[in-house]
């Protein structure tokens, strides 16, 4: 079964149009998300698998499937490392 991802709902965020700034009060850390990470963060309000995420993004961005898969993998890894998603 594919892994599902969901954003950490305990975090506080400020939407600045292109960017998103996120605060993890418990960690005492700020994170600044670029537009792609921000979009992934928004989609992951509901639990999604990586494939579901890629499907949504392919619809929104003019990129190849291969490129999208690769970028989503990188962003998910980064967001997980920052504990912004589970």
């Amino acid at each position: 079964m594919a892994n599902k991802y969901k954003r950490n709902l305990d975090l506080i965020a400020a939407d600045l149009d292109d960017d998103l700034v996120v605060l993890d009060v418990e960690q005492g850390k700020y994170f600044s998300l670029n537009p792609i990470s921000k979009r992934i963060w928004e989609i992951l309000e509901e639990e999604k698998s990586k494939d579901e995420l890629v499907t949504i993004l392919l619809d929104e961005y003019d990129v190849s499937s291969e490129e999208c898969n690769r970028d989503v993998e990188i962003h998910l890894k980064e967001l997980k490392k920052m504990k912004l998603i589970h």
Partner: protein
Amino acid sequence: MLLKEKIPTIYHTFLTDFLDLEIPNEDIATCSSCTLCKSDKSPYLDIKCCNYFPQMPNFLLGGILKENEFEFGKKQIKSIIKSKVGTTPYGILPGKKFTLRQNEVLKKKELFNTKQENADQKCPYYDHGRCSVWKYRESLCVTFYCSSIGGKNGDDFWAKLNGFLKLVEQKLSQYALLKLNWDSTLLEVKELKTESFDFENLQSKVNKEKFNNLWQDWAGKEEELYLKSYSLIQELSREEFISIMGLDYEIYKLAIFKLAETFNANRYPEFLRLNPKVIFEPQNNGKLKLRVDEQIVTIDLVFLPFIKKFNGTNNTVHVFHLAFKVLLSLNPVVDKLVKAKMLEKQL
């Protein structure tokens, strides 16, 4: 706004010099729509900025006890008196246990506390989003703003006013005790702090003998003392007040007026814009250098998205509120950038 809108009415007879002093409206820090509560996940939602135990002087406590309203505030005061924790003839101070916890929290570098820290430090007079002693609030509660529309100039003004009101509270509480025939050799003349008293320990256990020694003949009649203190202050004329305050009144008055002038002159403009000549130089350590001609300002990178919002069309208060969604105060950064002419008034 006029300063009289901020100063509690109990002081209006005494502080006539100050009442019509004009100062900028503090539009960033709005209590009714709390600036620290812009996110529904803010750890300040249940408390706003009221994670502070007020140091209420005897006469203010008497005012609350005398009024027909302030039921919750009165209940809290009576409960504190019953416990004896922090309960002195000068007024009610934070207990030692609370103060210890407060000092630990204040050592933190971050602007924000966790939800639990806030819950532990909640003001006893905070009642479901409202202050239950507002009319008789103490100096810090009168003058505190989480973010001033005047930046450091605003902070300096409010800090000076706080110092003045604190001195007023101290002198009037001492005056009341003197009039109640307190033993002058035992009357404290310096600023009162929780540490000044030794009748309770860090576990909030009160030594009854020491408590009674402190209260002298008034032990068991604490409420009565507070009420009498209030009556004595109510009867004071302005001339008597000025005499009690002495030279300090004149010194503070001059300083407050001067700082008000600077505050008014340096209020943040309604619209700010980033100087188009600014060059951004991200550093490896999470910092960002901004450079214009010979001027260099270094800020944390996290501020960049907010600084970019100062584009001449976004209202200054709006950008500050955006930052407060993630509990970021833009004041120190905006002050630096305005001084370096990297942020300018949009003409």
